[in-house]
């Protein structure tokens, strides 16, 4: 697709942020308003008084997400009853079991979605929130890329909850085999939701402010 050349205010090459120009911008549709405007006239979203979302929400949701992730790993995710025995498996246990069955690809999906992604997300959000307003080894562009990856990938962790849901709905074969969900499914789902909210409350404009101060 051909690129349309965006025009910036002013003839010199300096890029100005709306905040510097004393304006508040809508983070949904991009319209700018004089300071003190409370909601966007185009799309109706609320505007933040100083043009930036606060960091409090990020830390609060992140703490909640980490807190409920612990029981998610301790308690069983699935209870399986067959004719011969009954067993309970945790998140890690389920992935290891798949691996022993030779289903390497699926074991990898489960492991990545329910262990690597959640922990990687905690670290990434924590790092991004800490690095705001500081010099960091990572360039602004790279930090923003990390943020986009976290936002894009976060939802996919929910896959494990869906797997448990489908298995529990499907495997109800009288006395032969039964699968029931374990309590860890609830705390895992909450953990995913809380970290998604944490990533959503991180204002990417705060990351880019560092770029502005370098000039």
């Amino acid at each position, binding site marked *: *697709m051909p*690129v*349309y050349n*965006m*025009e*910036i*205010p*002013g003839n010199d090459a300096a*890029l*100005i942020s*709306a905040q*510097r*120009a*004393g304006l508040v*911008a809508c*983070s*949904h*549709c*991009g*319209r*700018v308003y004089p300071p003190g405007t409370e909601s966007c*006239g*185009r*799309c*109706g979203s609320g505007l933040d008084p100083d043009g930036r979302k606060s960091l409090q929400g990020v830390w609060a949701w992140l703490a909640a997400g980490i807190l409920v992730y612990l029981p998610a790993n301790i308690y069983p995710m699935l209870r399986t009853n067959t004719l011969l025995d009954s067993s309970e498996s945790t998140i890690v246990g389920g992935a290891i079991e*798949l691996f022993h*069955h030779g*289903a390497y690809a*699926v074991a990898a999906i*489960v492991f990545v979605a329910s262990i690597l992604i959640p922990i990687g997300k905690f670290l990434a959000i924590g790092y991004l929130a800490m690095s705001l307003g500081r010099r960091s080894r990572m360039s602004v*562009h790279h930090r923003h890329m990390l943020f986009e990856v976290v936002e894009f990938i976060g*939802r*996919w962790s*929910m*896959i*494990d*909850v*869906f*797997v*448990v*849901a*489908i*298995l529990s709905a*499907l*495997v109800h*074969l*009288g006395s*032969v*085999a039964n699968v029931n*969900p374990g*309590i860890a*499914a*609830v705390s895992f*789902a909450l953990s995913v*939701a809380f970290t998604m909210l944490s990533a*959503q409350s991180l204002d*990417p404009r705060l990351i*880019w*402010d560092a*770029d502005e101060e370098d000039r």
Partner: protein
Amino acid sequence: MTTELPADFAGKPLIACPTCDTLHVEPSVPTNHAACCRRCGRVLAAPRENAVRNVLALAVTSTILMTGAVFFPFIELQAAGLHNRASVLDAAMAFSQGIMAPLAIAVAFLIILIPTARLVAIIYTLLPLVQKRQPYRFAAHAFRLAERLRPWSMAEIFVLGVAVALVKVAGLATVSLGPAFWAFAVLVVVNVLQDNTMCRYTIWKSLETTRR
């Protein structure tokens, strides 16, 4: 610290990049061109020919597929002469017993209700625009809701979850997929097409200019 805007541009309508807050002069982008932020490269507007009409058509398609996905049999399991069939709704209701009941509601929202609500909101917003009439009341609210709910619409993740679950039970029993599974799979593809065709900026602008 504030910087004065350059005098030669005072008065021109401005927009700020939602990602990095950089000011640009409000563009009038020709169709099939992409306008990107000068600082961070985010696509600010990418209007395409007949985009609104195509998005509307895709949203209607999705609604039909969603209806099929909910009501047709989804997946069937056979082992040792016993068999069990589950619908998408059964999957959500797997958590409905005991203290996990709130999770059942949450799953129903993530895989059925939120995707459906988004579709309804998008159709509600775009239908008058296609017919070149004034937008319905609260159209801006509806479209904003659809955008807010986007990360929480998890149909595609559910489909991959089904694939993982199938591998888990493959050794235990014979599994056959019903029409609802295929409806769901197609739905995922249509949703991706729809999200890629839609230019949010164009829709916001046309909602604004046609408002009474």
